[in-house]
Structure formats: structure tokens, C-alpha cells
């Protein structure tokens, strides 16, 4: 099962750098997400791997075969790369029925009629769209169109499947449903998935590894939970997680004392002691607990109860902190509560934004 290797890949449009010096090793059978805000170069990266866009620099190989190399002048067209591509707005051909849409690519591969029929039926069944076989795309709902697009992409049995924000046009409920289906599909098809999204939750829940990018530069390439708990820098920390991580400016002393937002705590962590300097303290909202034994005094600024959890905005001595409390609890606005820090916090270098250490804040 194929692995994909990108070496020093860059794409420039005139002076504008879309992707800069990107190195990626996508293991076989993995489900990779390219994540980032719009304009970060994630779609360009995907299109370069698929062959729809030509890189300016670097080399790309799929399954041990070099498909692009700027220095050797190699550039295989997309159809020679044995890949499938699922487009954001499905790109179904409006003048063909569901059956014709799925079969068109196969006819083109010179499959015989019977074999096409069998394969299309198999896919229609797999994606539960048998009853729509004779319909045109305009007669289908968004979710059904999405399934047809997936069936069409899967039809020739590509070893690698690329998806460009395929769920962004669906409503929230359907999106949840399709996420589960995609994850299942990944297991069933036994192929490598590369998935583009700007939705961090989608990236968290779907992928085996996340590649997060900003302005064309790779920020971190790691399994989602590792990225969540130990983000490489402020950008990644801010992008992953909802509600977002709390960031408070502070100062780290030689002895490991952190002073931030009117609070003072000891930063305990494994490994070498950290150098003294200005830092940003990052605390995940779910690691701020509201309890009677807490050492910090806080005022409730506002609450957003959702039933399963409640997001509480706190004011600690002029510093605003967001906490998440699980369960159906609520607090009166402007009431006084006590809170404390649990589990991990991350320190970032104030100047570079880089992660300098993960540890525990002891008040």
C-alpha cells in the first residue's frame, strides 16, 4: 500500500509563495489531513501531489515511483499517478445520470461492459445509492450528490485518494454522518487518504496524522492528539481545539517560577531546567477546573451551557480565562467562584512563539 514522499516541494506564482520547502512523508495506509486557514497552501499541496498543479521546486514520489522531479524534468500527468480526487463541490457532470457519472471513467479505461456494470453496482450498494442510479445530479440532495462523487472517485480503485474539503457544503448533521462513513471507507478500501480541511475538528476526528500549515509553511506534522497536547508553536496551539487555548503573557524566572496575569505558579516539567525569559502560558480550557478547593479567586463573566458541557468565561484579577466544565452545570453571572489548574500547561517563547516546554502549573 502506497506511501507518498514530498521533498523540498515549493510552488510559486510569480513572486507569491504558495508553498515553501515542504517535506512530508505520508505513510502507506494512513489518513492524512492537511489543515490550515484559507490561503495557507493546503489545497495547492494536494493538487501538486495529484498532478493538477505543477510544483516549482522539489520532487514527489508515490508508491516508490517518482511522479515529479524538477531537477530531472519528470512530471507524470494525473491519470498516470493512479490517484482519485474528490472535489469540494463534487464536480458531478450535470448532463450524465448517476450511473453514467460513475461509469464514465471506467469506460475510458476500456473496461468491458459487464465488468463496468458489476463494479458500478458494487459501488452503488456500498454507498447506499442504488435507487438513484437513473437520476441526474440536479435531482439529488447534497448528501446524495456527495455519495455519487465518492462512488465515482472510488470506481477505478485508486491506491491513493485525495479529498479537497469534501464535506464543507453539507449541513452539520450530514457532515457528522459522512465523517463516520469516510473513516469506515478508509478501512474498507485499504488505501491512503489525503484530506484537506480548514475545520480542526474534522482533522482531529478523522486523521491518523495532521499536517498543519500556515502561509505555505509546514508548522507541525503529528498525530492529532499529540498535536493537541503538545503543539509545536502558538499558531498550532491556537488553531487546534475549540474553545481555543487560553494564552496569558508572563515571565519565567531562573528558578522555574512563572508570573502571569497577576498569578504566580511554579512550572514543573521533566528534563532540563528552562532559561529565564518572557513567555506565553498556554492552558487548555478543560484543564481549568472550578471547585471549592481552588486557590484562585475568579468572577463569572458569562456562561454558555450546551447540556453536555458548559463554557465559562472567568475573570481572574483582570485576566480573562475560558474554562470548560463537563455536565449540565451553570453559574450565575458575576458570582464568585474558585478555580485551579490541572494536568498540563504549555510554555511558549514570547519572541518566537515556539513551544519551550510542557509541564504542570503549581500555584
Amino acid at each position: 500500500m502506497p506511501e507518498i514522499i514530498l521533498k523540498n516541494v515549493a510552488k510559486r506564482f510569480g513572486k507569491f509563495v504558495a508553498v515553501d520547502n515542504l517535506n512530508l512523508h505520508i505513510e502507506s495506509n494512513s489518513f492524512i489531513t492537511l489543515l490550515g486557514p484559507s490561503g495557507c497552501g493546503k489545497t495547492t499541496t494536494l493538487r501538486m501531489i495529484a498532478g493538477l498543479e505543477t510544483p516549482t521546486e522539489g520532487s514527489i514520489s508515490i508508491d516508490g515511483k517518482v511522479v515529479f522531479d524538477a531537477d530531472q524534468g519528470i512530471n507524470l500527468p494525473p491519470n498516470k499517478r493512479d490517484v482519485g480526487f474528490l472535489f469540494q463541490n463534487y464536480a458531478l457532470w450535470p448532463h450524465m445520470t448517476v450511473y453514467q457519472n460513475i461509469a464514465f471513467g471506467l469506460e475510458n479505461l476500456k473496461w468491458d461492459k459487464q465488468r463496468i456494470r458489476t463494479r458500478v453496482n458494487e459501488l452503488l450498494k456500498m454507498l447506499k445509492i442504488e435507487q438513484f442510479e437513473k437520476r441526474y445530479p440536479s435531482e439529488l440532495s447534497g448528501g446524495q450528490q456527495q455519495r455519487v462523487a465518492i462512488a465515482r472517485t472510488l470506481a477505478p480503485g485508486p491506491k491513493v485518494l485525495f479529498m479537497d474539503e469534501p464535506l464543507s457544503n453539507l449541513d452539520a448533521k450530514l457532515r457528522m454522518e459522512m465523517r463516520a462513513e469516510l473513516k469506515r471507507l478508509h478501512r474498507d478500501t485499504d488505501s491512503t487518504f489525503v484530506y484537506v480541511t480548514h475545520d480542526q475538528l474534522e482533522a482531529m476526528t478523522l486523521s491518523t496524522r495532521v499536517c498543519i500549515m500556515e502561509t505555505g509553511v509546514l508548522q507541525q506534522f503529528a498525530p492529532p492528539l499529540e498535536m493537541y497536547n503538545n503543539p509545536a508553536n502558538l499558531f498550532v496551539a491556537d488553531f487546534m481545539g475549540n474553545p481555543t487555548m487560553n494564552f496569558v503573557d508572563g515571565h519565567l524566572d531562573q528558578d522555574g517560577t512563572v508570573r502571569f496575569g497577576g498569578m504566580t505558579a511554579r512550572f514543573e516539567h521533566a528534563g532540563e531546567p528552562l532559561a529565564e525569559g518572557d513567555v506565553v502560558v498556554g492552558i487548555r480550557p478543560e484543564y481549568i477546573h472550578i471547585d471549592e478547593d481552588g486557590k484562585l479567586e475568579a468572577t463569572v463573566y458569562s456562561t454558555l451551557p450546551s447540556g453536555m458541557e458548559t463554557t465559562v468565561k472567568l475573570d481572574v484579577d483582570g485576566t480573562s480565562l475560558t474554562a470548560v466544565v463537563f455536565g449540565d452545570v451553570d453559574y450565575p453571572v458575576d458570582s464568585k467562584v474558585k478555580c485551579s489548574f490541572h494536568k498540563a500547561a504549555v510554555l511558549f517563547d514570547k519572541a518566537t512563539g515556539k513551544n519551550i516546554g510542557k509541564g504542570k502549573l503549581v500555584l
Partner: protein
Amino acid sequence: MDQARTQNVRMNRMKGRVRAWLSKPANIILLIFLATLAVLTLYPLLSMLTETVTIHVGREARAARLPAGSLSLYHFQRLFATAENDYSWIQFYQPFLNTLLVSVASSVIAILFGGVVAFLVTRTNLKYKKFVSAVFTFPYIMPSWTLALFWETFFKNVNIGLKTSNGIMASVFGVYMPEWFVYGAFPIALVLGLHYAPFAYILIGGILRNMDANLEEAATILKTGRGRIIRKITLPIVKPAMLSTFLLVFASSMSAYSVPVFLGSPVRYYVLSTKMKSLMDSYPGQAYIIVGVMILFGVAILLLNQRVTNSRKQFTTVTGKSGQISKINLGKANRPVAVILVVILLLVAVVPLVTFAMESIIIKAGDYSPSNMTLDFWIGTNLSERLDQGDSTGILLNPKVWNALGYSLGLAVTCALVAGTCGILVGYGVAKRRGSRLASWVNSLSFFPYLMPSLAFGAIYLAMSSKIPWLRGFLLLGLVGSVKYLPFASRSGVNAMLQLSGEIEEAALITGVPWWKRMIRVIFPIQKSSFLSGYLLPMVSCMRELSLFVLLVPTSNTILTTMLMQYSEKGWAQFGNAINLLIILVVLLVNFTVNKLTGASIDKGVGG
């Protein structure tokens, strides 16, 4: 050693990049069209420019007292700065001002008439809407001289113009119209305005139809009156389309030839195009300078139009798809307004046809009694025994007419196929490589022929063909027609391709569908009606074209329109009217057949 390797790497990178560039069909298409169009449009332009500084054999050489073939700025000096006998005033400045006046006036008329009708059809509960919108494009489909000829035939009388005979108004109703009403600026502007009003109808109506009703509803909620909504919200949104129409009509009116010939020349009222034609025979150098001035005007208008349409984008983002437009209730005014509109449309679109039919069956001009009528001019035989002029058979029994009809149709189909197909390819290339310099060059070049006045375009190609022995007859006419009508086709091609998301093609590309198959099986079927409109417009235009071909046809019997001109010059009015009617009917027939069969329509091609 190391240096050799870097050299090698650099070569490979170069090769790879070139190969990647050439692997995209859009790039190859653009390259081919850039080269071809440069030859077919820039070469004529250059050769025209050299004509403006060349002294030609004959009167020119004698007047300038210079040897024929020598280079000189004499023509410029003569045309622009000769005070004696008011030469420059008469030959250039007066026609120039006339052109400005007529073009501005016709643009205003077109916008007012077309815009008001577009508003009534899209935004009110007007009666007979179907009829109005069906008949409204008629004047554009018909040859532009139709209305002019109709105007002249209807209103002429023995007191004015050539003072030959009375038209229907004078002979039937006994009303003698004054000269300014029948000939000159007023009728020219009016006829051109009516002819191009469909532009305004299509462009403005398109915006009004797609305009998000919420915009007006939001104002209604804020307790704004109807009139204020129209003034403060609807009009500003339509303004870019109005400007676009203005420029388009202005450019078209400026280069119009047949209307000012019919309605201006009898009273020596000249515009640039008619002046150019009259100078062409004796002083071609000055004629070509006028062509240059007209082209300059055209380019300026094109640039302006581009700026306008670019800024238009800020409005297209607000036009959503909400369908429930609250139509204005015209109330008691509905029926009178509808009736007036229907009457005007009948006058503009139907009455001319009836008039031509009448004129083709009366024996003695001006006498409309039944005893003076005959079908001989259509189906008579041995006419020469009974008539002192004209052919010996009616036009429907005349093999010359049938030959010309066949030739005209063949030419129209050829030009439509060539221009339409090229238009789709240009559209594909331009849309795919949108934003690149190559694409914008090809886009501008393919639009350039639109700015060349037809007559001048024909003249230049005539000069060109004299140097190329095999470029003759059908081949020459087909080439000229295809190039001249490419702008229509490439416009609709580009519009159609821009509406198509790139993913549609990429989805086929990724499964290895070859380019030609993607075009035929995927792209063409999806945008079928827009693409077919790109074929229809050149076909209809070619069928009724006169000024482009008039200098190039081997004999005047070659195509129907030149045959018509020849008959009117000879004064064989009945034959001429019969042929005119034949042309109009064929054009309408072609248009509606294609429209019914494929859904393509002229309005889709006129995309400002």
C-alpha cells in the same frame, strides 16, 4: 564535473517546465490563436496604416503632385488641415461631429427604450409579456437596413431627398413629412437606436432578472416608497449594465454603414463610415485615415467598457438567486401601456415586413390599388415582354437568386462553424489560463475585429488578397467572415467557460480522459446552449451582411445581399424588396429553427 552536472540539472528543469507548460491544451490553444490572430488582425491593421502614408495611383498622385507609391504625410495634412473651400470641415470634421451626435443619440434611445421594456417585463405584471419579449429581439435579428429602408419607403415624398416618388404616408394618407423627419440625424439615430435596443433589453434585463429581491424588500421594510426604491436602489444597480450598453451601442452605431447610406446620403448628410466609402474610390489614403480614427474610437470604448465591466463585479456578488420578486402592479395603466408597447413593436418588427411584401407586388410605385398589384416579381415568367426593366422571371423562378441563396447559406454556415468552433477554443484557453498575460492578449485580439468597421475590414482584406493568388472567392469570403464574427463567438465561449468550474474538467482529467474527449463528452454538452449561441450569431450576421462582403464578392450576383444592393442601385425596387423579404425570412427561419431545436438564442451571444 560538478559544473557539468549543474548544467545538466538546469537543462532538465528547463525541459520539465516547458513540457509541463505544453502538456496543458489551453496553453497550446492560446499559442496557436495568438499567432493566427496576430497575422489575421494585426497584419491588416499594419497594412492599413501604411496605406495612410502612401500616395496611390490616379487622382491622389495628381492632387499631391507626388509620384505614386511614395511615402508622405500629405493625406493627414489634406484631411485634417485644409481650410480652402472648407475641405477639412466637409470631409472630416462635419462627418465626425455627425457621427458623435448620431451615436450618442442612438445609444440614449436604445437604453431608454430597451431599459424601460426590460424593466416592464421583469419587474411589473405587464400584460402580453410573452409577445413583447419574443418580438423585441426581432429588430436585431433583421438586417439593420430593414428599418432604414422601411422608414424611407414609408415617409419619402416628392418634395424632399431625391424627389423621385411618394411613399405610403404621402400617397395613401396625403401627409408630406418634412425633410428632417425623413432624412438625416433624426431618423438615423432613431433607426439605429431601435435596432440596438435589444442590447439594452438583454443586458439590463439580465441584471434585473437576477437581482436579489431582498435588496428591494429590505428597502420596502424600511418604509421606502416605490419610486424612491427604483431611483435609489434599482437604478444604481443597473447603472453598470446601462453604461455597458451605451458603449456597445455607441461603437456599433459609429461603424454602421447601411443605415446612414439609406437615410443620410440622399440629403448629403455624411457620417464617418459613409464619408470613408465615398473617399475610398478617389482618395484611399484619406479614407484609411478615417478608418484609423474609427478604430481608435473603438479601442477607447473597449478600454472604457473593460473598466466598467470590471467594476461591475462588485454588484454581481450581491445578485443572489432568490426568485420571488414582488412585481409592481401597474393597475389601470397596465392595459394602455401594454397596448402602446405592442403597437410600437408591431410598427418596428412586423409592419416593415408587410411593407416590403406590398412594395414587391405593386407595378407602379405609389399606387396601392388592387389593380396595380401582381405576383410577377415573385413567380412571373417572360417579364421582359411586359416590363421595361429587371429580370425576365420572378425571383423565385430565377436560378441566379437560388444560386446566391445557396452561396449565402453556405458562406453563413462555414463562417458560423469556423468562428463558433474557434470561439469555444478561445473561450476554453482564456478561461483556463485566466489572469495570465497570454490569455488576456488572445482575449483582446479575438475581440479586435469587432472594432474594425466592416467596410474597412473588407477593403483591407481585398488589398491583402491581391498579394496572395490562392486567396480568392469562397475561401476569401469565408476567412473574412470568420475573423469578423469571431468576437461574437469568443464572447459567448469565454462567458460559457467562466461559468464552468474547473473541477468539472479535472474530475475527468484525473481518470485519464483525453482532452478532445473531455471537450466533446463533458464540456460541450454541459454548456451546449451557450456554445451553440456562439454559432448562431455569426451565422445570422453573415446571412445579412453587406458592407463586409461588398468589395470582395467576385460578382454582385454571388450572394443575396450584394444582389439586393445591385437591384436597388438599378432602381428595380420590386425585385429588391422581394429579395430583401427573402433574406429577412431566411434569417428569421434559421434563428427560430436553431432556437427551437437547441435552445441557443441570440440573447446569449450578446454578453456585453
